[in-house]
């Protein structure tokens, strides 16, 4: 063992630190940054990969492997460590027993429901008793942004009125997905301020989503749990196009368009 150079942090401890680091970064990433608790099953799966990977890297060379096992061997073989050994020999079986016990208790954690937030839209869809072709569908009012800014401003304002009367309860009057009833809905209403929502989408996609609501989603997006209403039952086509103008205007974002692709 003396053949290996002495390090500031023993290799075994290094490995433990790396694994612990990974563990806490996952928790930090999910619970703090993404704001949702990481499901236990997912965390276990991630950690299996991390541990396997780290052990592989640390034992890549024979020397490395020996250095890693050094402290463990010493613990078992070195008579001067008897005290520590006895302690470890009590703790390890107890831990193993405890872990087995707690993992055998039935889990009351709710099943994880994975759903696609932005599913691929259909090519065609039906609303207002008509068929729409998503590839060619455009916002009839968008052109006024350049042609007639005063008219455009008035249209945006009308869209804002539609929004505040119909959408703010869920999507919030700041369009941040935190309306007064948002916390009572699962999945939560989408946040239009976020770069990952309307900024990534075409106006035709929004029209489809708004007109057909939760029930209009394909199966991979779990239409049965979405509380997004079917707006063709409450709004006219014109009102939907105007509310779309408002969504982009208020958040200062631009719709994605075909010409940019």
């Amino acid at each position, binding site marked *: 063992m003396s053949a290996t150079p002495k390090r500031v942090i023993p290799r075994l401890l290094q490995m433990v630190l790396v694994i612990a680091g990974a563990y806490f970064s996952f928790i930090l990433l999910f619970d703090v940054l993404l704001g949702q608790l990481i499901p236990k099953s997912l965390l276990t799966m991630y950690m299996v990969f991390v541990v396997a990977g780290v052990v592989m890297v640390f034992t890549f060379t024979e020397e490395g492997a020996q250095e890693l096992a050094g402290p463990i061997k010493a613990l*078992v*073989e070195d008579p001067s460590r008897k005290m520590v050994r006895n302690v470890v020999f009590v703790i390890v079986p107890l831990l193993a027993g*405890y872990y087995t016990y707690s993992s055998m208790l039935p889990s009351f954690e709710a099943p994880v429901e*994975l759903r696609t937030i932005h599913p691929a839209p259909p090519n065609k869809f039906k609303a207002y008793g008509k068929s729409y072709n998503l590839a060619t569908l455009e916002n009839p009012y968008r052109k006024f942004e350049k042609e007639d800014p005063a008219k455009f401003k008035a249209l945006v304002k009308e869209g804002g*009125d539609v929004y505040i009367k119909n959408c*703010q309860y869920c999507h919030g*009057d700041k369009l941040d997905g935190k309306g007064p009833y948002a916390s009572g809905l*699962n999945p939560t209403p989408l946040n239009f301020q976020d770069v990952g929502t309307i900024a990534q989408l075409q106006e035709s996609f929004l029209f489809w989503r708004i007109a057909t609501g939760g029930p209009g989603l394909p199966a991979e997006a779990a239409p*049965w749990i979405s509380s997004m209403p079917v707006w063709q*039952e409450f709004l006219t086509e014109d009102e939907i196009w105007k509310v779309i103008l408002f969504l982009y205007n208020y958040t200062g974002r631009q719709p994605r368009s075909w010409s940019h692709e």
Partner: protein
Amino acid sequence: MANKFALLALCSALFAVGPAMAKPGTAEKGKVIYDMRCTWCHGDEGDGKGAAKDHLNPPPRDFTSGNYKIRTSDFEDLTPNDDDIFRMIRDGMPGTAMPGWSDILTEQDMWDLVAYVKKFASYEKPPAKQVDFGTQISSSAESIEKGKKLFEEGDRCVECHGKSGKGSASKRLKGEAGERTWPRNLTKPWTYRGSAEPKDIFSRISTGIAGTEMPSFADPKSKKKLSIEERWHVANYVASLAQTGQKVSADNTVVKVSKVEGELPSATDDARWEKSEATTFYMVPQIIGKERYFLPSSDTITVRAMYNDKAVAMLLEWDDRTKSTPGDDSAGKLADTPIEQDGVAVQLPVTIPSEMQKPYFGMGDAAHPVNVWHWKSGGKDAPETVGILNSKGFKDIEKREAASAGLTAKSSYSDGTWKVLMVRPLTTASTDKDMQFVEGKFIPVAFAAWDGSNNSEKGSKHTMTTWYWLLLKPATGSKPLVTALVIAALFAGGLLWWARSAGNKAA
């Protein structure tokens, strides 16, 4: 060194909650922000007539009225401090549509808004006098006891807030625009507009709440007047009413049904309910399908459940300030007309889904029907009832007798709280019509409630949850413990054998 100061400044900025230092704002700049962000609710003229006004209760504030609910100026002077207005713009008003703006507006923006908003009521000078806080009396069992006496004495606060503080009404209250207002439910501090800290409560009791019927108790002319010291005791008592157990915890999405030996509770006040685990969910008004409903009075429902080898018992508990009894005169006086029955419902899939797909959360769909157990409170001369709906969406509903599935329900109402106990056998004769309970499986469940005194809630006018889960916890038995002991013994044996063989080698 400069770095250190910057850090210090940042830290103190982060922790600087409470009264902000008033800074001069510019009304012209405030107007620009107002016209973009606030006019939707508060209206171009500040008169509260924005597009949203008919769909919100409380309605958006009419700034021209000069009424500010949350202020720290003396009760005689309606002028708020700039700090008071700033605070409401920054933090928002919980329990209403008014959000806090600090995440998208800068501090200067908010001061500019203060300057602009004040102009609607021509508030130019700061208030002459402030609320006199004296010296704060910190909370103690003794102070809370004194506060309780004062709260109840001569029905001082009980008149509106009820003995439990839940606001079980004894009279109808109106707001400044004639809209119906409800006394605050003092057991739910997270619905306070201006925080449930004793100091805040002290201010509200001292100033009253402008634009509502909540009066000032600092006014020497009031028969129910309280001294400074007394107001601190009342504030401490009110703060102690918080029922944090009723607070929704977003992680807790499973109603855990525990197994009991012997009989299930047959009454809503069975002592075993106290000990069983409660799960609370938010309820939102039904704003999704026709006819939409915007002005709810309830916000949460708390569920407890138990089962034995024969049946499941579920206790549903929710706050409702009014017991709605059609045909009863005193109930009629408190209710909007026409008065309807109160109600509650539990929704379950007819078939427990084996994969991810569930029935549509709003009363199921053609391929995935749901069972709805619907309890109604009855009327003056009519008993409470419970029925079952088999629904494939709200247009395709079959009504059934509760007896056909052995479902029974029983209720109690007391001082602002409904409790309804529903019991159903684990299995029924019609497996194609009724869900059959299975131990250890996650079963989707949703809830709804009706307050028949509030806007005649009935039919699709109600509050509701989306899907959550119900789980009949299997009795665990001794298997985990035995296995754990065996594993521990194996480990200990292995380690000993290793040490011994290593020892032998060394020798």
